[in-house]
């Protein structure tokens, strides 16, 4: 049993009671909501004649269904408009702060929480979205939940949860040039598998994490869930505090020192005990590309696709399905695989630093004629900051479309979709069958710079060759 970890400390500080089921009732410090998983939850609260217990600890935005071309209302998509109407009605009725288009703070829920300083070390956070693990980058325990649990958090500000084990995931050494946080997280998932994290919270540490920016840490924690872990986190340090300082909801100057003292106190002790420890060497990590239909089916960009015989017997069916769906061949190189669509965005890689990395590759080059490429900033703030630096022009001159903030083609609930058998290079987090809006569509996950390289070359490329 883990002891003295951030997980233990934050968990213990939020325990309300032990429930008769054996679960623990945990207080949730920050509840983030969005339009897709909340309308039914609000209806259930209203049907039970309840109120929102802590509306001032609840914040809402819209991201999943918003169009990224024209955001004029009413939306052309009638269902999207209805969904937008529902959240507008509910936040008004229950008195919840709402970051809508007019606010200038709208964006993907996991991008705006940190950006506004809402996400702070030592908190418990819940959101009706699996990538809530992103907020763990700040040293929080952040849980993705279903709609009925959203109802519980609305009505009680609590969740019933089972305790987790804690696995320390060390990445030491130094990343090679051209290797990014996305490659780190994809490598961890490739080695530990998509089921490897079941029952665990992942604590990420080691010199590679110490050296990462907050945006990079968020990219890694974002995909903890893709490795099966219920939560992932990095211990808070000076990088965390520097990021938070001066943000809208961060503690003000008079409270800052007290806040930092608390934040430092929740970090794992030097002699903390873990249920499991795994070690990676950062210097071994290559730019990674997924070739299959689960995020652990990936290879280094210069590797060949694995032979089916290499997989354990119980994986063979999934692997065969993956090759059939992707129309790729075992033994073939992944580099050179032609692409139709390039998508830069999502809660994994839709932040300013991601766009900067991609823009470095796109600058002065042209998107291949065969490729439809677009960039979707993760939030209105990211968009504004990128435009201030002129990133939008770099992208549009290269032939990328520059869009408004939202989830877009990460899950294709808006008009941005693959069609037919199109294959995309995507900076998002899921390569599941049908994920990008066409049931036959195909997705290869990679870092935003690698997506930009693929867009330019018209095929999967090693971004390091374009950096020379």
């Amino acid at each position, binding site marked *: 049993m883990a002891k003295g970890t951030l997980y233990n400390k934050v968990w213990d*500080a939020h325990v309300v009671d032990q429930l008769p089921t054996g679960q623990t009732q945990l207080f949730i410090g920050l509840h983030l909501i969005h339009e897709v998983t909340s309308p039914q939850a609000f209806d259930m609260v209203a049907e039970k004649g*309840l109120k929102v217990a*802590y509306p001032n600890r609840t914040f809402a935005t819209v991201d999943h269904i918003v169009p990224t071309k024209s955001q004029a209302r009413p939306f052309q998509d009638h269902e999207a408009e209805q969904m937008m109407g529902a959240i507008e009605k509910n936040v008004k009725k229950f008195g919840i702060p709402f970051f809508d288009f007019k606010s200038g703070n709208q964006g993907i829920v996991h991008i705006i929480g940190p950006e506004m300083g809402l996400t702070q070390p030592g908190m418990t956070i819940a959101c009706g979205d699996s990538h809530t693990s992103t907020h763990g980058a700040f040293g929080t325990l952040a849980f993705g939940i*279903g709609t009925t649990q959203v109802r519980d958090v609305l*009505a009680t500000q609590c969740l*019933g949860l089972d305790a987790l084990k804690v696995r320390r995931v060390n990445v030491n050494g130094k990343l090679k040039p051209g290797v990014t946080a996305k490659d780190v997280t994809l490598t961890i998932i490739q080695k530990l598998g*998509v089921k490897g994290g079941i029952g665990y919270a992942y604590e990420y540490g080691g010199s590679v994490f110490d050296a990462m920016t907050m945006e990079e840490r968020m990219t890694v924690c974002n995909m903890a869930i893709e490795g099966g872990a219920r939560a992932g986190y990095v211990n808070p340090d000076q990088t965390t505090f520097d990021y938070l300082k001066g943000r809208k909801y961060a503690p003000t100057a008079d409270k800052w020192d007290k806040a930092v003292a608390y934040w430092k106190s929740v970090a794992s002790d030097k002699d903390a005990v873990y249920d499991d420890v795994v070690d990676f060497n950062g210097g071994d990590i290559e730019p990674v590309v997924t070739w299959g239909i689960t995020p652990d089916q990936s290879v280094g960009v210069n590797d060949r696709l694995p032979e089916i015989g290499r997989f354990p017997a119980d994986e063979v069916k999934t692997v065969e399905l993956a090759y059939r769906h992707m129309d790729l061949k075992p033994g073939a190189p992944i580099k050179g695989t032609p692409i139709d669509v390039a998508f830069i965005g999502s809660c994994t890689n839709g932040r300013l630093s991601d766009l900067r990395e991609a823009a470095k590759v796109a600058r002065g080059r042209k998107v291949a004629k065969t490729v439809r490429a677009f960039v979707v900033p993760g939030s209105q703030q990211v968009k504004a900051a990128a435009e201030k630096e002129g990133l939008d022009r770099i992208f549009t001159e290269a032939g990328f479309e520059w869009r408004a903030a939202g989830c877009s083609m990460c*899950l294709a*609930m808006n008009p941005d979709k693959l069609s037919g058998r199109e294959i995309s290079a995507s900076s998002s987090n899921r390569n*599941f069958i049908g994920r990008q809006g066409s049931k036959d569509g195909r997705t290869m996950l990679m870092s935003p710079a690698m997506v930009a390289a693929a867009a330019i070359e018209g095929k999967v490329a090693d971004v390091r060759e374009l950096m020379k």
Partner: protein
Amino acid sequence: MNKVTRIEGRAVPVEGNDIDTDRIIPARYLKEITFTNMGKYPFYDERFDAEGKPKGHPFDLPPYQGASILFVNQNFGCGSSREHAPQSLLRWGIRAIIGESFAEIFAGNCTMLGIPTATVGQAEMQRLQGLAKENPGTPFVVDLEKKALLSGGKEHLKFEIHESKRNALVNGTWDSTGLLLANAGKTAEVARKLPYVNGFQPQG
């Protein structure tokens, strides 16, 4: 609330590891603001071709109509937290899921809807899926008190189920709002003690 102790019925096998929630319910059906119609959509893109004609998925084969138990393999329900996935299975008629392993958010969502997610070993699941394929009419009983899957009246197989989930189901406390709400006083107390809720003020 309803106690869930025994689920009786026929079983439908859906084979494959890592069947994610996008496959269980494609994102386009998440645009509906109620769960009412979800029963029409489970595994939609695996069941129907472009013209909407069934492709022979188990959910459309005549012998499995009315089945209430789902047999699956490893890491079922991975991916998105969308409750639409268990809602769609529930509203199609599934009342219990037996698998080799489940993604945690999905299993938690199932419990919240009163659907047990029980696990058996790989060899046992192969046998169960085989049985459901060869003899789709086989009646099963998922007995949460005995933690066993019965078929033909006799004990067939012991299964595992997370104890807190089993407790919630057999005691009828799986709809947790009531439990959590009963502790509203204690909740306020915990909140008051948290430095960040308190605005980092000294505690009194």
